[in-house]
């Protein structure tokens, strides 16, 4: 096992061992991703004889055809729209509810909080069939709302918990000072709690956005029209259509995960903190 304490005086052998092991694991992570990206530049024949290396001839048309078509952009747009509305609604609705749990004393407050915590215990898949029937009966099937509303509802448990814990830890003095000055709850929520809660708003937003952006099972069940598909569904349809023309599928995969990778590298600190904190604190 590696020595974590004596980082100062490390023998060259330990150092070598560390770098070799770490690089090996890094290679296991990166090779599939890089071959996917490079594979998108190959012709099918090239791919067949040479899946690892650089393309013999760089076939840019695989990528440009997708980029100049509207299919890719439409799917990205759909995903973005669904994710943005989901995040906005989740943050607003859960912050409001959490505020009442943190600051307003009322009968049954504890029980009601526990009621929301039930939502943390099971995944959306458990209730997917009744959910489908409910959405159908509400006439929301094949609409963005049919995906957004269940997503918001299933995100509430975690978000309310995170918001409530954060609101409760705001200094009590703020609250008293504001009330002495005649500030009401709603005003306090809007002018004091929310502006002070940017870190937790960020955490909740990141978790909800990533969940929604990557979500597959809900859109799969709720949407029927291909023009409304978010990208995880679209990519599966694309793969179904182009079957074994892997070079096109690989180019499409690369382009769809590219935004995620770029945003991840730009905001890695916040994303890692948000995703792990979001999971741990709930």
């Amino acid at each position, binding site marked *: 096992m590696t*020595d974590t304490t004596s980082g100062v005086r490390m023998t060259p052998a330990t150092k070598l061992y560390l770098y070799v092991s770490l690089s090996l694991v890094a290679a296991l992570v990166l090779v599939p991703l890089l071959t996917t990206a490079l594979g998108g530049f190959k012709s099918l024949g090239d791919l067949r004889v040479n899946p690892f290396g650089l393309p013999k001839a760089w076939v840019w048309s695989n990528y440009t055809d997708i980029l100049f078509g509207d299919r890719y952009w439409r799917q990205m747009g759909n995903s973005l729209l669904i994710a943005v509305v989901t995040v906005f609604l989740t943050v607003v609705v859960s912050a409001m509810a959490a505020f009442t749990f943190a600051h307003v004393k009322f009968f049954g407050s504890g029980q009601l909080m526990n009621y929301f915590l039930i939502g*943390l215990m099971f995944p959306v898949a458990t209730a997917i069939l009744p959910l489908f029937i409910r959405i159908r009966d509400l006439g929301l099937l094949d609409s963005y709302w049919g995906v957004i509303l269940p997503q918001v509802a299933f995100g509430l448990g975690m978000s309310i918990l995170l918001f409530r814990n954060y609101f409760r830890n705001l200094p009590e003095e703020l609250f*008293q000072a504001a009330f002495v000055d005649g500030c009401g709850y709603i005003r306090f929520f809007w002018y004091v709690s929310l502006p002070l809660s940017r870190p937790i708003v960020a955490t909740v937003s990141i978790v909800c956005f990533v969940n929604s952006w*990557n979500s597959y099972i809900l859109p799969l069940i709720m949407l029927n029209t291909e023009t409304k598909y978010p990208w995880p569904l679209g990519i599966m349809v694309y793969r179904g259509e182009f079957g074994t023309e892997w070079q096109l599928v690989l180019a499409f995969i690369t382009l769809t995960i590219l935004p995620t990778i770029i945003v991840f590298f730009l905001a890695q600190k916040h994303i890692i903190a948000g995703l792990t904190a979001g999971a*741990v604190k709930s």
Partner: protein
Amino acid sequence: MTDLTATGVAGSVTASRTVTYKSPTSRGRLPVLILFLPPALLLFTLFVILPMGEAAWYSLYRWNGYGTPTEFVGIRNFTVLFNNGAFSQALINNGLIIVISLLLQIPLAIWLAMMLANKITGVVAFRLIFFLPYVLADVAAGLIWRFVYDGDYGLFAAIAGFFGVATPYVLADRDLAIYAVLAVIVWKYFGFHMMLYIAGLQAVDRSVLEAAEIDGATGWQKFRYVTLPLLSSTVRLSVFFAIIGSLQLFDLVMPLTGGGPSNSTQTMVTFLYTYGVTRMQVGLGSAVGVVLFVICVTLAFGYKRIFMRHD
């Protein structure tokens, strides 16, 4: 805050100023409750609680989803379920995923976290690379690995060609496919667990380790008797996530195998989708949901009570 005080006093509160200091919570409570609670309550009840209750109800019927359920069959859906080979396979696979996670993924994550605790150049880069698969969508990861495993075009074909052996079609082999899926799960999620351990390691008190070192503990002893016990709450957390993740696994399996070949890679949720949703057997699908729900709730309560009571 200044504009707040200026506008706030203008209301009808002048008389109650001294009173409100004692109980600021009694005034204006009703409007905030009426405004702030119902949206969350409504959404949550309508789309989380009621569907779960309905799943329990529908699971006692044979129903194709149209009209109202009338054909009451009692617990037949559940007996059908537990006598179904594909569902048993799904349960076994879910268990297998948990076992692999405990035996392979978590030790791997701890090992990497320990290595990354060293102050060497490039730590941040490695950490980023290892976390990268976790932020990718399961569907994308599944498709990428479907290519990797592809017997005609993929990396496996190339590797087999290099060694001059017959190309294995891993995902089409009913004995191998589940292991191929398991490898992808480890690839996708070890970075998340590693991050948990990195955070856990940062909380470990250095002086305890130094004391052990002075007492002549070897690297392994320090790890086994000092670091690991101090990480125990992180381990429990990480195991908990592995179990929950296994129970809801779906997105990753669909692009890889879709549960096949011959149901060998079904999980509970892919089973629910294949047999409940696509065939519109609402009763049977809801029964799977109920089983999943019972397992999740039992685990959540049991695990918290037994293993996490000190945290």
